[in-house]
């Protein structure tokens, strides 16, 4: 039955259902979030010496527990990306933007985050980006409001 068949005086309301999950982070993810609040990005050194960012608790190859957190840069290189033409309400930016895998300087793996850009033609694999920190940070991935393009490209000098 379509809306046209409903009586005009029928009640109607916007409702929300919300589950207020409060999750413990564990020491490794907790350190990553703590770092974000303090405006420093950290990865973790894997068994083979590679730096994994965001950090993981166990080595992806050997499964050995990992403990050595290392600082990585707040600039990096886009390794893959996708354009979001019509963001939904819960997405980080209201304007169209890119979602990108970003290999931060000093890291060997990529982090998924938002890249602000005027349009998809401005984004490219290999493009250099820099974290734009949120003014109010509370320890979460949204402490980086977005990454912005520096205008440089990997392998070229500015």
């Amino acid at each position, binding site marked *: 039955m379509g809306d046209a068949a409903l009586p005009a005086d029928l009640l*109607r309301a916007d409702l929300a259902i919300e589950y207020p999950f409060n999750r413990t982070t564990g020491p490794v993810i907790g350190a990553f979030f703590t770092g974000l609040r303090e405006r420093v990005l950290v990865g973790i050194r894997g068994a083979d010496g590679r730096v994994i960012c965001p950090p993981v608790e166990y080595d992806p190859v050997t499964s050995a527990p990992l403990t050595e957190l290392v600082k990585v840069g707040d600039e990096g290189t886009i390794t893959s990306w996708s354009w979001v033409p019509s963001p939904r309400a819960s997405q980080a930016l209201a304007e169209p933007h890119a979602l990108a895998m970003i290999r931060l300087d000093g890291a060997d793996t990529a982090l998924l985050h938002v890249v602000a850009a005027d349009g998809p033609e401005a984004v490219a694999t290999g493009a250099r980006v820099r974290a734009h920190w949120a003014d109010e940070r509370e320890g979460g991935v949204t402490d980086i409001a977005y990454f912005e393009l520096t205008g440089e490209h990997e392998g070229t000098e500015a």
Partner: protein
Amino acid sequence: MTDTDIYGVLPEALWSQPEIDLSGIAEFDGVEAIQRVRLPASITYDYIPGLAQTRFLRGLAQKKILGERSAQSGDVYVPPRGMSPAEGLPTSEQVELPHKGSVASFCVVHIGFGTNAPPTPFCSALVLLDGASVSVYGPIQEIPYDQVRIGMRVEPVWVDDDQLAPSFESIKWWRPIDEPDVPAESLKGHM
């Protein structure tokens, strides 16, 4: 209210992972480590309560509690869904229920959430209104939570008249009335 008030302090040695080494990162000196994060999951939706519940909700705005009776079984459903779930047939007879009922079941809530949750601990109950076949939900106030009992007689406490709305929140809570408890057996099958 802070998360610590609600959930308490995390116990030591909660996590099985080994100690992490942050010695190489000066920015971590003296800062409080994050141990948990709030990750609410939510969906918003457009709710249309239907004809029967629209009547019920509009009744609440006039301090009326409206139910509907099944012509076959005589059961009175409140809030009404427009049909009897037992028979699958429409409930066409409107019934205005009295503002008196009995606690059919209850629990003590220690972790409260929601916009209008009373301070914890509080007692949350199912109230069987006189003449109804099913119970309605509501918090019990104006009595210590550990003195609430099954069979206790209660009445609704309404919001101020200028706050009345087509919403179940027009009833703030339920409170005891000075009548003898009803036998628990009389409430069986009416939760």
